[in-house]
């Protein structure tokens, strides 16, 4: 998954176009090397390095709306893939014991470095068909209720909870409203605050508003380097606040939605480094980085009592907000 496929274009993001020329050259070198007796391994390696360097340069200078593109990229690893790469013995659990199994949200049990944990995450796909099957990771109330059920299961047996956030938002559908989308998210927020087990949230792609927060109230909130987290999409912000849908780029800047911005605002605790060119260029490496961060943040949480864990979380969110105290 690390490199573009044969025709090279599908897996490149719009702003990666400058790489196309280099990839073309690489292909030609490979063809040349394969056809003749001339050994061009050295040249190929060199070209690959140039591509790597060019990619690194591009990604070092991404502006917010480009980061939005990376965060939403269809090739980006999804929660099921991360579950397989980060954990051992992942077992999916279906259903909210109530109404349905929501395919937009994956839940299960697994082992992190030998320790039992519950895993929760929004499920995207890599194709249109997959995305339709998972409703583009836009969960219905039953998704949030499934997540809560699994969190409570974990809590009952003292197992930490790890959530992976990657959603445009909670689904704004008719049935979702009928079945209490607002209630489902609200209840999750209150219950997450009171969870008696360590809880870490990782924003891996799109952190879309209440739909993201609905499973994201960890003791620690970590963000992948090229993920975003915001109260509304840049497009939504542009069309509502700026009254100009074309100004999504400006909105992305103004809203401070990148990992770096959010670290500055102390809304998140750490940025997890991504492989050059984004997580999709090397999912195992991305997973390795996530795993390392999870273990690092889990360690101190494991030594806290139930009361301390709740207090830790309460204090974290209690502090959020910037205002004038006034008279």
């Amino acid at each position: 998954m690390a490199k573009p496929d044969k025709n090279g274009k599908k897996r490149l993001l719009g702003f990666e176009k400058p790489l196309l020329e280099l990839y073309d050259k690489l292909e030609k070198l490979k063809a040349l090397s394969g056809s003749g007796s001339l050994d061009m391994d050295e040249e190929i390696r060199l070209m690959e390095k140039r591509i790597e360097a060019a990619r690194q340069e591009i990604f070092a200078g991404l502006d917010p709306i480009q980061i939005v593109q990376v965060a939403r990229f269809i090739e980006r690893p999804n929660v099921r893939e991360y579950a397989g790469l980060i954990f051992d013995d992942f077992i999916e659990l279906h259903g909210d014991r109530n109404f349905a199994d929501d395919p937009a949200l994956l839940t299960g049990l697994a082992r992190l470095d030998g320790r039992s944990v519950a895993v929760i995450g929004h499920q995207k796909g890599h194709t249109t068909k997959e995305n339709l099957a998972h409703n583009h990771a836009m969960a219905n109330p039953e998704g949030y209720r499934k997540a809560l059920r699994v969190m409570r299961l974990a809590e009952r047996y003292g197992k930490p909870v790890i959530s992976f956030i990657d959603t445009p938002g909670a689904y704004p559908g008719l049935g979702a409203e009928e079945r209490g989308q607002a209630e489902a998210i609200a209840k999750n927020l209150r219950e997450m605050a009171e969870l008696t087990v360590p809880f870490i949230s990782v924003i891996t792609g799109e952190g879309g508003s209440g739909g993201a927060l609905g499973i994201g109230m960890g003791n620690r909130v970590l963000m992948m380097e090229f993920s975003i987290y915001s109260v509304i999409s840049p497009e939504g912000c542009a069309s509502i606040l700026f009254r100009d849908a074309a100004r999504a780029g400006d909105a992305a800047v103004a809203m401070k939605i990148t990992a770096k911005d959010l670290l500055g605002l102390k809304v998140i605790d750490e940025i997890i480094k991504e492989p050059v060119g984004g997580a999709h260029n090397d999912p195992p490496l991305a997973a390795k980085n996530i795993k390392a961060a999870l273990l690092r943040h889990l360690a101190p949480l494991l030594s806290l009592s139930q009361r301390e864990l709740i207090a830790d979380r309460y204090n974290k969110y209690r502090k959020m907000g910037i205002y004038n105290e006034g008279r």
Partner: protein
Amino acid sequence: MSIHDWFKRKKLQKETEYTRERLDIPGDLWVKCYKCGQPIYAKDLAANLKVCPKCNYHFKLTSAERLAQLFTDNSFKEINAGLTSRNFLEFTDTKDYSRRIEESILKSGLNDALVTGLGKLGGLEVAAGIMDFSFMGGSMGSVVGEKFARLVEAAREKKCPVIVFSTSGGARMQESIMSLMQMAKTSAALGRLRENRLPYLSVLADPTTGGVSASFAMLGDVNLAEPGALIGFAGPRVIEQTIRQKLPPGFQRSEFLRDHGMVDIVCERRFLRETLIKLLRFFKD
């Protein structure tokens, strides 16, 4: 504030109502009902708690009006009134957020969209929060979240119940992610209140949508709603765009939410105070 002032302000405030026509005032003394279109003598409307005597339409109340209807003994004492919003992101859309805040304060006479305080209802001490739609559409930013959290803390200290009247278009988008975090903050505060086994009554007024509905407004031990209030997570327009069809009549209204299990009691304004007192007494034992 007179009903006259209220209508003047009403004209200034951004109307987020969906299907209803904007208020059309034929004169100072007469008000045209949003719903039935009938003219109502303004004094009659005020005397009737701002409920249309003809069709029972519940007009929006300002926080001041709500307080006057609720704490008839003037026992309400505001707390944390001084908190004001800050443009910490230096956010500018069609207008600078700082200027927006200033203008809203001037227009509404409030410092932000939530008024909090302590008072007595039916002789029982309560911590009360009243949202005001006239302050930037009742949107929730850092100030709303902080005042809410402090209100809950005050209740925990006094060991008294909390009553909050919600009316809100959702998040204060000018505060971006920080407005989202207020959902977490207010819900976490309610978690603590619950741990302390102190009751929380939530009253939903027209409209309550977005981040407020998906946090503290839905978390009442008992959820009450005024008749006909628009209540939902997503706004009707967004849903229509998603499903590409018109919404059925009554969708996302109080009665719909009751029938779908989210609202315990749809309560007419004239019975609201006594119902709240009954509930407070129930929990008090």
